[in-house]
C-alpha cells in the first residue's frame, strides 16, 4: 500500500488556483524529491498535505494509509504521523522549546496509547539527538525558535522530527539558509530516520540537498501539476538544462 496518495488535487490559496489536478503517490521507505521552478506550487503542496488554513482543496482527495485526511484537523494529521519541516519556522516568544516539544511528544504518545514521558525520560531521549545535530544545550531552554539563526531553526525542526518519529516526512526547502556543516548535520538526522518504511517528500529548488539525501524518485512540479517523474538521473538533466526543457509526460 502507498503511504500517501494524492489524487487529482485542485487547491486554491485565496482566489487563485495553485494546484491543478496534482497526482502523487509516496511509497513506503522511499525518498521522493519534488523539484520545480518558483511559483510551481511546491510549498502549497506541503501546506495542502498538512491542512494549512491558507489552502482550500476544491477537488480531489489525499489518502494517508488508505484513509482520506481532507476532513482531518492539522493536529489529527500530525498525530497520525504526518510531519512537515517548515521552510520558515515561526518564532513563538514565551513558549519554552523543551516544554513545547514534550507536549508534542506526549500528545503523540497518548494518541498511540503509549505512556507519556516524564521530564527525565524526555530529557534523556532528547539529549542524544541534540548532540548529533550539534545543537547548543541552551537552545532547548529558550523560547521556541526565538532569536534562532536560520540554521538553528532548521536543526530544531529536525530535532522535532527525530523526537516525534513520524511516518511521512515532508521537508520544505530544508537546505535553505544552511551552511555545509549544518546541512551535513541536518541530513544525518534525516537519514537516520530511514527505516525502509517511512516515506520522505523532499521539496527543493536546488540539487545540493540531494547529494546528502539520496532520492529514489524525482518529480517535477510545474504550474500545479507533476509533469514528470523519473529516477535520480533526472537531477543532472535539470541542472544542465533547467525546468524549461522538461516536457509534460503524456
Amino acid at each position, binding site marked *: 500500500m502507498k503511504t500517501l496518495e494524492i489524487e487529482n488535487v485542485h487547491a486554491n490559496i485565496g482566489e487563485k488556483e495553485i494546484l491543478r489536478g496534482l497526482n502523487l503517490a509516496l511509497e513506503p521507505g522511499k525518498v521522493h524529491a519534488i523539484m520545480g521552478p518558483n511559483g510551481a506550487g511546491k510549498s502549497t503542496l506541503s501546506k495542502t498535505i498538512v491542512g494549512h488554513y491558507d489552502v482550500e482543496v476544491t477537488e480531489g482527495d489525499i489518502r494517508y494509509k488508505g484513509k482520506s485526511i481532507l476532513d482531518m484537523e492539522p*493536529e489529527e494529521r500530525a498525530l497520525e504521523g504526518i510531519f512537515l519541516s517548515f521552510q520558515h519556522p515561526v518564532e513563538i*516568544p514565551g513558549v519554552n522549546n523543551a516544554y513545547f516539544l514534550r507536549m508534542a511528544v506526549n*500528545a503523540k504518545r497518548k494518541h498511540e496509547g503509549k505512556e507519556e514521558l516524564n521530564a527525565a525520560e524526555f530529557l534523556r531521549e532528547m539529549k542524544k539527538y541534540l548532540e548529533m545535530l550539534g545543537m547548543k544545550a541552551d537552545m532547548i531552554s529558550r523560547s521556541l525558535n526565538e532569536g534562532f539563526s536560520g540554521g538553528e531553526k532548521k536543526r530544531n525542526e529536525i530535532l522535532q522530527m527525530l523526537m516525534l518519529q513520524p511516518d511521512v516526512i515532508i521537508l520544505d526547502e530544508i537546505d535553505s539558509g544552511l551552511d555545509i556543516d549544518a546541512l551535513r548535520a541536518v541530513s544525518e538526522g534525516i537519514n537516520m530516520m530511514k527505516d525502509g518504511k517511512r516515506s520522505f517528500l523532499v521539496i527543493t529548488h536546488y540539487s545540493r540537498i540531494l547529494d546528502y539525501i539520496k532520492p529514489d524518485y524525482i518529480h517535477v512540479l510545474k504550474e500545479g501539476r507533476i509533469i514528470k517523474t523519473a529516477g535520480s538521473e533526472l537531477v543532472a538533466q535539470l541542472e544542465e538544462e533547467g525546468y524549461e526543457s522538461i516536457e509534460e509526460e503524456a
Partner: protein
Amino acid sequence: MKPIELANKSLTDAATLLGVDSTSPALERLLAIGLPSKKSEEYRYFQVEKLLEETYNTLEYVPHSIEEGEKIVIVDGIVTHAPKNMRVYYDQCQAMDMTHFDPMYYLGHLLSPHVIKIDLDGDTDVEVEHHYTKSNALINYRIVLSNQANRHATLFESFHADNIRDTLVLYGYDVFVSPDSTLRMLKNQKMDENGYAMIASHRLKLNQHANAVLKSFDVGSGMGLQLFKAELDTYAYIDAGHLLYLNKEAQRGTVSKIIHRGEHSTSQQEAKNILDGHTRGIFDALIKVEHSAKYTKAHQNSKAILLNEEAYMASKPQLEIYIDELEASHGSTTGQLDPKQLFYLRSRGIRETEARKMLVIAFANTLIEQVKDHRQQEVIKALFDEAYYGNEQ
C-alpha cells in the same frame, strides 16, 4: 453614603457631608476638579458613575492594636498584623500632592485623615495582604510608603475577598522613593464579578537616582482602575509593567501620568493585555517630558490580544514632550492570536484549545518572567491559571 451626592456641592455642604474641615485644601481641590464622570478624560473608558451612584455603608475607623505577623495584613482598611521591627503606624498625611490629576486621590485623602504609614528600613522584602470582608461598603484607606536611601526594598501586594458583594474600595499609595534606592512594588489581583470594585489612586515621587519597579498583574473579571502619577527627578528610573487578563464583563486597566522633571531620567512602561468575553481593557498612559528633563529616555508600549470579538481594548499611549534632547518611543498594537503560531503548534499534534492556551500564557509570560522572585512568579502564574482555566469551565 452615596459618593455621587458630592457633585456640585458647595465647600460647606461637601464638608458637612464628608464630616471634614471646609478649609481643607484637598476638599477645595476635589470640588475644583469635580467628581469623575464619563466626561472626565481619565475615566472616559471606565463606568465610574455606576459605582458612585450606589449607596454604601461607610465604615467607622476603630483603632486596633497591630499584632505581630509575617506580613502586613490590612482588613477592611485597618492594619491587623505587621512584621516585628517594621514601622507600620497611623499618622496624618503631611505630603499630599496638590497637583494630582485624579479627583479620587483627593476623595480618598479626605475620607482617610489618618493614613497607614509604612517605613521600609534597610534592604527588605515585605508582603501586604489586603482583605475585604464587608458587603455594600465603602472601604477607604490610604498608605504612605517610604524607603531608605541606598537601600533596596520590595513590596508584594495581594488582594482577598470572601463572599462579599457590591463593595467599593478606594485605596492608594503616596510613595516616596529615596535617593539612590530601589523600590519594587508587585501587585497581583484576581477579581470576581460582583465582589468588590476598586479605584486605586497612587502618587509616586522618585528622588535623584531613585529606581522604582511597578508591576501589576490584574486578572479575572470585575471593575477596577489603577491610576498613578509618578514624578521623576534627575537620574531617576521607573519601570512599569501591567498585565491584564480579563474575562466575563470586566472593565479594568491603568491610567497613568509619568512626568520627567529631572535630567537623565528614564521611564519604560509596558502593558500586555489579554481580553476575553465582553471585557474592556484600559491603558491610558501619558509620559510627559518637561523642559527641565534633558537627556530623558522614555519608552512606552501596549500590546493587546483579543480572544473574543466582543472584547474591546482602549489603548492610548501618549508622549508629551517639550525638549529635543531625548530618546523616546511609544506604540500600541491590538490583534488576535497569531494564526501562524497557532498552526505551527497544531502541526505538531497539539490540540487547538491547548495551543491557544499555550500562546496566551506565552504572551503573559513575557511579563510574568520579569518577576525575579521565583516564589512570587509562581504565585502570579497560579493566579493567572486560575483566572484562565476557571473561565473555561
